[in-house]
């Protein structure tokens, strides 16, 4: 969604073409991100002609301020929905930065790793808005990601296993 999309596209901006093809996963309720992504990829294709990307949508796992119990149910549903998608794409790398949408995708990849079907490296970059506390997605994925990147030193102190690179967006 919105801010998350802008941030993640900035994270992608300096990546080489080794990180291709790119598979974007969006919440079905997200109206604006598709345009931003297409515009980013179009620009990219001007420099890297063989550039490829896909766009998939999954049901949104949690609405803002949704109750805890119903969140567990909707997240479980989203994980089940994400499994075939993650299985189909078998990504080497999952890069995410915090929207609720990323949790089921990452958990489904983690599951496929446990089942020895595909080992995916999960890199989570917490949003630049998070200076002192982690988002809910961050709190969950701190334990499931291979690399957890934070952008402010306070968070590095609180979450010692995280990676601190300063402001990267």
């Amino acid at each position: 969604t919105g801010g998350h999309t802008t941030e993640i596209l900035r994270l992608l901006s300096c990546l080489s073409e080794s990180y291709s093809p790119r598979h974007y996963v969006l919440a079905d309720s997200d109206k604006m991100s598709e345009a931003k992504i297409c515009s980013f990829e179009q620009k990219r294709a001007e420099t890297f002609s063989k550039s490829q990307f896909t766009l998939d949508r999954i049901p949104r796992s949690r609405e803002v301020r949704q109750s805890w119990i119903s969140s567990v149910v909707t997240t479980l549903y989203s994980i089940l929905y994400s499994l075939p998608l993650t299985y189909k794409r078998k990504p080497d790398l999952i890069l995410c930065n915090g929207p609720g949408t990323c949790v089921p995708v990452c958990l489904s990849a983690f599951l496929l790793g446990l089942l020895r079907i595909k080992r995916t490296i999960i890199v989570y970059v917490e949003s630049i808005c998070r200076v002192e506390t982690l988002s809910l997605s961050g709190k969950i994925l701190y334990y499931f990601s291979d690399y957890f990147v934070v952008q402010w030193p306070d968070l590095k102190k609180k979450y010692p296993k995280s990676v601190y690179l300063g402001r990267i967006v």
Partner: protein
Amino acid sequence: FRFKDSLAEDLQSADLVISHAGAGSCLETLEKGKPLIVVINDKLMDNHQLELARQLHRDGYVLYCNCSTLVETLQSMDLSALKPFPPGQPEKFASFLDKVFELQ
């Protein structure tokens, strides 16, 4: 003015921006090099939103006030004391990922 697609044009021609504490608004304004006063809405206290505004103020990039102190802030502000906001460095992230995948 309610929901313009982009405030970029307006930002470009502004001399001073007074904004709420939303991250997008703050960062977009700072990146355009415009002086910024962030107004905190005491009634809508979403702590998460305040974190970034507070940090930006601590680092000397923005001025900070609430609705009731806005007028006096405007009267006594010294915009030259604000520091220029350095851009983020996505290239550091690219380097980091390259090392993870041993692409360097």
